[in-house]
């Protein structure tokens, strides 16, 4: 089996339009959650979210491109540009034929659909823009990445709700490990912050109207974000041979299914996924120094996730650090695991663990070191990134310091 390393990272999210901006904000505990600003927001009962700020799509893309790029594709392409530039790779010849793209998204082009529904149902129009279908399809972002960088190998999109990008990155990891591809562009994106997107979420009654406070006793729900995280996953030998800078190594991955409920989380499913990732990586639980939690800030997730961590790690659960960066960049749904992987890279490479901000009161059901409010200097050897989706689809990645 081949070893797999990360040689490039890129992002667009509410904390910044690049990885350096985002990591600086995570170190400082900046909150990207603000009043939502889009059409018809006054008809929503939930009016906060972590919207991307200052992203000038007209300056980044041509008019012809924008006719085909939903915001989730725009975010993906900007993040991919940053990641591929950092990796130093160009794709031609045999490398181009074998390298591919696997991205996660839960909803794809939600705002493209929303705008079209508004036009035909609310405004009584009888036609919509001719490119609605290629713009909203879940695989559009992966397609445009492959087209933009000449990636001609295996490319597809994974959709497992809030675990989509972790499942996608797990596929990229497995494909490189097995020798199917030397390089994969991977991660995920989401852009649900539009009237229809938030209106649908309101119905579930799991959203907070004021703040995201993971693990805090007074937490009252999740807050949605938007954006993309994209990485270059690469065969270790290939990266070494060309002298690439290695951000960290991907050492293990596991996925499990709760097989129980369409929205409620399961301690057993989460525990089996974390245990599986450790077994896949061949590492002891005592080696894990940091867990980037799923940590949505809902009553159920945070309680169940902490119980699962305690079940898997035993006494070591009290020693490791666990934080939820969703408190800063919001829950980016199908793209969230990708943006959260940046916090793992920061912990492993820079020795800084991002905090859980908005933490106000201890909860006995979440009695772990959740790095409340202020970033922490630490030198973890191994980090886990958790994603536990609606429908009980769990995906956990294990990463090691380079």
């Amino acid at each position, binding site marked *: 089996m081949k070893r797999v390393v990360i040689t490039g990272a890129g992002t667009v999210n509410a904390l910044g339009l690049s990885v350096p901006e985002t990591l600086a904000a995570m170190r400082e505990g900046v909150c990207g959650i603000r009043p939502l600003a889009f059409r018809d927001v006054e008809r929503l009962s939930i009016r906060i979210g972590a919207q991307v700020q200052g992203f000038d799509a007209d300056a980044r893309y041509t*008019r*012809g491109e924008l*006719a085909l790029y939903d915001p989730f594709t725009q975010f993906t392409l900007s993040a991919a540009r940053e990641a591929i530039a950092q990796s130093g790779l160009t794709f031609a010849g045999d490398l181009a034929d074998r390298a591919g793209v696997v991205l996660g998204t839960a909803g794809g082009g939600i705002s493209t659909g929303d705008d079209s529904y508004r036009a035909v149902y609310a405004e009584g129009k*009888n*036609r919509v*823009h*001719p*490119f609605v279908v290629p713009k909203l399809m879940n695989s559009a972002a992966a397609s445009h990445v492959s087209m933009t960088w000449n990636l001609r190998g295996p490319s597809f999109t994974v959709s497992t709700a809030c675990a989509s990008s972790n499942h996608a990155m797990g596929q990229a990891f497995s494909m490189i490990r097995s020798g199917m591809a030397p390089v994969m562009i991977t991660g995920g994106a989401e852009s649900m912050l539009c009237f229809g997107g938030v209106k649908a979420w309101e119905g579930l009654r799991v959203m907070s109207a004021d703040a995201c406070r993971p693990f805090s006793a007074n937490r009252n729900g999740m807050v949605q974000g938007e954006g993309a995280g994209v990485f270059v996953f690469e065969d270790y030998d290939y990266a070494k041979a060309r002298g690439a800078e290695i951000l960290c190594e991907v050492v293990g991955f596991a996925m499990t299914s709760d097989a129980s409920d369409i929205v409620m989380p399961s301690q057993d499913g989460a525990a089996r996924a974390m245990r599986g990732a450790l077994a896949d990586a061949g590492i002891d639980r005592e080696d894990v120094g940091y867990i980037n939690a799923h940590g949505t800030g809902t009553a159920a997730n945070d309680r169940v996730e902490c119980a699962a961590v305690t079940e898997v790690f035993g006494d070591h659960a009290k020693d490791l650090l666990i934080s939820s960066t969703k408190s800063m960049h919001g829950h980016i749904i199908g793209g969230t695991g990708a943006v959260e992987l940046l916090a793992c890279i920061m912990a492993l490479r820079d020795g800084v663990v991002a905090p859980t901000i908005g933490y106000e009161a201890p909860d006995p059901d979440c009695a772990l070191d959740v790095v409340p409010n202020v970033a922490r200097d630490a030198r973890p050897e191994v980090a886990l990134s958790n994603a536990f989706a609606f429908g009980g689809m769990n995906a956990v990645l294990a990463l090691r310091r380079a």
Partner: protein
Amino acid sequence: MNTQDQVIAILAEQAMVAPADVTPDSTLEGLGIDSMGAVEVIFAIEETFDIAVPFNANTPSEAGFDISKVSSIVAGVERLRAEQG
């Protein structure tokens, strides 16, 4: 603006050229408008003139609406406006 000027404005916008560079004899191909661009042109024509243009990209020559050049588009628009107005 008469029909021809409006059609020229739509094509110039799509081709990203000045309207003065589009003449009645200009073809979509000559303007660099590909098949995806042609679909956008038809959408813009439908919106501008409030007409339904019968056009199937699989069988463009059987559509009864010749989009090959400016003058034929203008003639098609005027016919559809008379029929559908």
